[in-house]
């Protein structure tokens, strides 16, 4: 089974971290990290917040709605930032999309 490749993140995408990328709070260094094969990424505060909302069910649009409300910020600006950040993660190979369940 081929894994998803070359994901293009859009408002309708429902992204989620793949099994091999784990978001974790590092108690020793007091930072959030994404653990991946032979890599440790240090997402910034906003990236952490976005990733915690990316559960494979919410769309990028849903995530932006939640953040726009929480920070009382313009949704379009947030959406644009979220897409850039997630696309960057996807290009690095650390983002997947929820698959359609076939009955």
């Amino acid at each position, binding site marked *: 089974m081929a894994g998803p490749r070359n994901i293009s993140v859009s408002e309708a995408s429902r992204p989620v971290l793949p099994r091999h990328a784990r978001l974790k709070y590092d108690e020793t260094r007091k930072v959030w990290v994404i653990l991946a094969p032979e890599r*440790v990424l240090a997402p910034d505060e906003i990236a952490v917040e976005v990733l915690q909302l990316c559960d494979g069910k919410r769309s990028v649009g849903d995530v932006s709605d939640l953040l726009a409300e929480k920070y009382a910020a313009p949704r379009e600006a947030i959406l644009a930032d979220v897409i850039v950040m997630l696309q960057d993660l996807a290009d690095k190979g650390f983002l997947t999309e929820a698959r359609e369940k076939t009955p």
Partner: protein
Amino acid sequence: MSDVLPTIPPDASDSLAVLEKSRSTAETFGIPLAVLLEITHRCPLQCPYCSNPVELDRSGKELTTDEWKKVLSELAEIGVLQVHFSGGEPTARKDLVELVKHASDVGLYTNLITSAVLLTRERLSALADAGLCHVQISFQGVEEGLSDRVAGYKGAHHKKIEVAKWTRELDLPLTVNAVMHRQNLHQLPDIIQMSIDLDADRLEVANVQYYGWALKNRAALMPTVEQLDECTRIVEEARERLKGTLAIDYVVPDYYALRPKKCMGGWGRQFFNISPAGKVLPCHAAESITGLDFESVRSNHSIAWIWQNSDAFNRYRGTGWMKEPCKSCEFREIDFGGCRCQAFALTGDAANTDPACALSPLHETIFKQAEREAEGETNRFLYRNFAGGTLESGNDA
């Protein structure tokens, strides 16, 4: 495996910066992010470039299941985030599933570095259930003839392909680990294609590093300068073409370089590994340096204490131990004088400049020798085993 992990400095403007393996400065040495666990030296393969020491730990010396579990708990506690189960062949240990389960339970990210030949689908599935995060399979080539010959194991290549497929079927991410040398570099384009066909996420193109077994086999493995240039060109082209599909890590052999590699990110700065017998080592080849006494997890010292205070770790840490030309060199904190094991193997003193460096008085001699060997006709391997090596039959005299 490649131990040359990327250490791109965190960039304040990057929301997803790659964290350095330790945020150490020249004076402090934070606990490494990742640790290599060589849980056994036993292995059914006999690759002539094996990174294990020439003097292998016998099974009777290996840490017990409980000892490894204690090590895993301790590593998680002191801030290690990832562990690589390696060997030898880690699946040769009957307790591997139990160890992976324990590592997952204590919150460690687990990676399996395997030759794959001993795995069954059932066992791989059990490892996945135990929480294994990632599988790295070594390949010796793209077809059975050469691959099985390099591995010294009939049927190895076929089995590896099968296990790679199971890995993806179980939705585990796969890295293809290709160790490259004169006798298989011509297969590199096909190895890249094989990695795509196997749906790997990553490919490690790791040119052989010449110490231990590989040093004994240097004449049969050393590539020519032209081969290497071609290899680099192929990797660069493929990286660009396969962006987002296949990540390629690339390790070059340093004999042909002008600057030595920053081996292990500097001795005792970002990395340690634990040997089958429980020795805590600055790199997997460190035991080849005689006169250093490595502490064991079986001692009454904690792993953190050994990392921070043991004589072996402090001996070549930082720059204070350096002699000329390293001592006054402007690059001394960039490459830390290269590789201590290589310096020891080629000059007899680990505190000498690594001859891979153009500033080493031995560089020219070593370079010329490598060139001569690369042009030579010696293709016969000395296979790695517990008996001190066995010479290949046939393949030139």
